[in-house]
């Protein structure tokens, strides 16, 4: 059935309101849309790494999760959910359970790109039937906006501050999506909540219902860390995609598919200038930094086009 936002939005919320995520945060929007891709009859075991999503949705004695939920620690969302999936396989084999259960692990970029990378890599390599979703807000937001390996170059964070001598983070961001593609798992997707969120929904559906380990990297802006006005969330998402800072693509059984190619690729400064974390780049004399970012974005975009055989 063709995607229809009105229909999809009618599905019961599996992450209910009343949680304590910030207004204008990308993460709950992403999570809710992903969970909408679950078949209503399917039960889900959802894991989350320690982070904003976890500490804001499951504060004892309240939970915002309609499905079963498990939080273990920061670096082990993938291995924890892999254990639950293994138990499911064994118990199903023994005839102890009959209903179908889907397994989804969430982690922020801290819990995924950095401290949880080993756990993620292991779980994916072992072939568990599970989805791992990184909601990437490009820094350790839960502890107060410290830089991660997902933080873009020159971003101002509390551990890569824009100072008089050093202008924010000095390193390029890690391309985790490519790292996961190279695990040769059946499905890897990079997406964001843009427009009617069709791309996000369809990728979630494919990730959840592809047998074996699948990975989604989803951009999830943070109003505090990125310093934007909370109503601008969707605008920021759109600019990330339209500038090719965050291309939408998927890799199905090793085959690249570019899901969106902007007709008019916007300059990356359009994405940077609406965020306070990059405001020092717009001071006189710092133009070269924006140029460097543009060069890198162009390089990575060209590489993706090559992989997707678009040119």
């Amino acid at each position, binding site marked *: 059935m063709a995607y229809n936002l009105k229909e999809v939005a009618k599905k019961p919320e599996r992450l209910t309101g009343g949680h304590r995520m910030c207004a204008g945060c990308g993460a709950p929007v992403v999570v809710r849309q992903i969970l909408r891709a679950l078949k209503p009859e399917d039960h889900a075991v959802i894991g989350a790494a320690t982070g904003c999503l976890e500490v804001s949705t499951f504060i004892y004695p309240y939970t915002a999760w309609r499905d079963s939920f*498990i939080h*273990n620690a920061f670096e082990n969302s993938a291995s924890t959910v892999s254990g639950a999936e*293994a*138990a499911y396989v*064994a*118990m199903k084999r*023994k005839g102890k359970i009959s209903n179908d259960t889907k397994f989804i692990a969430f982690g922020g970029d801290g819990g995924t790109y950095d401290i949880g990378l080993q756990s993620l890599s292991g779980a994916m390599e072992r072939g568990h039937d599970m989805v791992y979703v990184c909601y990437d807000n490009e820094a350790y937001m839960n502890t107060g906006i410290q830089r991660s390996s997902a933080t873009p170059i020159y971003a101002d964070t509390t551990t890569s501050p824009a100072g008089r001598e050093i202008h924010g983070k000095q390193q390029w961001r890690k391309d985790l999506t490519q790292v996961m593609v190279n695990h040769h798992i059946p499905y890897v997707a990079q997406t964001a909540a843009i427009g009617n969120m069709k791309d996000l929904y369809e990728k979630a559906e494919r990730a959840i219902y592809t047998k074996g380990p699948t990975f989604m990297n989803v951009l999830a802006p943070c109003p505090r860390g990125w310093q934007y006005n909370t109503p601008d969330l969707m605008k920021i998402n759109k600019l990330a995609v339209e500038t090719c800072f965050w291309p939408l693509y998927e890799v199905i059984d090793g085959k690249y598919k570019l899901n969106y190619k902007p007709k008019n690729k916007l300059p990356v400064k359009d994405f940077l200038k609406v965020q306070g974390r990059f405001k020092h780049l717009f001071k006189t004399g710092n133009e070269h930094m924006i140029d460097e970012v543009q060069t890198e974005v162009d390089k990575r975009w060209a590489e993706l086009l090559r992989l997707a055989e678009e040119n």
Partner: protein
Amino acid sequence: MSIRERMSGNEAVAIAMKQINPDVVAAFPITPSTEVPQYFSTYVADGVVDSEFVAVESEHSAMSACVGAQAAGGRAMTATSANGLALMWEILYIASASRLPIVMACVNRTLSGPINIHNDHSDSMGARDSGWIQLYSENNQEAYDNMLMAHRIGEHSDVLLPVMVCQDGFITSHAIENIELVEDDNVKAFIGEYKPEMNLLNKENPIAVGPLDHFTHCFEHKRQQAQAMVNAKKVISEVAEDFYKMSGRKYELFEEYNADGAEVAMIILNSTAGTAKYVVDKYKALGKKVAVIKIRVFRPFPVDEIADALTKYKAIAIMDKSEGFNAAGGPLFTEVTSAMYAKGVLLPKVINYIYGIGGRDVKSTDIEIVANKLLEILNTGEVDSVYNYLGVRE
């Protein structure tokens, strides 16, 4: 009829796991416990168990996967040693706080540094406050028997705590000894089905595990966890009684050996108790009475029972195969002496020996030094040094 066999402590533990047939075994190899997952993956490959073997990429993920599996309503098991246990540290606490009765074979090895693959108890002693029940084993038979009792203890509704079954790396894990195995059907009947009240896979009653738990409730949860450890003592004894009826092998919280008429005693964990028994038998033949008290249950610590048992002695040597680095004595020493003081058992003279660190061989002649010292204290009433080292060059 029980089965008479001969095998190593590692194989004995692996056989117990095969008979238990858990849902998930998640493990990462580390000497000297590596054989346990090796044996178990063979059982999986040969289709003699129904378990999923999760060949994780680290011990941290082993314990994390066990938490996920047990929360999902399965029985989860693992095996590790030394640095592997250390890498699990963070999740050991989460497993016990989440009240998940995971069972682990801990094959004791010196915790780095320096790196050393041989036996002492620095690994499990470091985990003594992690909320896990700890059972110690003198030989392969006890390691096997403790494994068979572990699920019954941990899964009891008054307990719901993970259980660590310890044995000495190489000394018992690799030495081949005679053993009596329980028949598969009897193990199955003894262990029973695992039916947790709540689990992640129950669609009709979804649950959430591992909350952010603020000062409004965290203290109460910790209090309940502490009570579970208190409750465990009675459950361990009840399970041992049932095990005795099935197997004819009797287990207590600790074993008192050669106590009759003895005025001095050595308190020991794991395999060195065997060496000590040999020495005190020899002394008995010479008319010298020395008792051996072998602690089986270190967590929960049998404070009342130990204190009560010690009232009859005049001098006690508490033997630690790990350092506590508190500049005053090892962990067993501080546990035993605090039990004695709290229960008003103040008359026995107490001394501590740190021994066998980094796998230093503990010979019968070493134990004789301790026995002789105790008899000297009995004679003179004088303790010249409380905190001592046995068998170290200095």
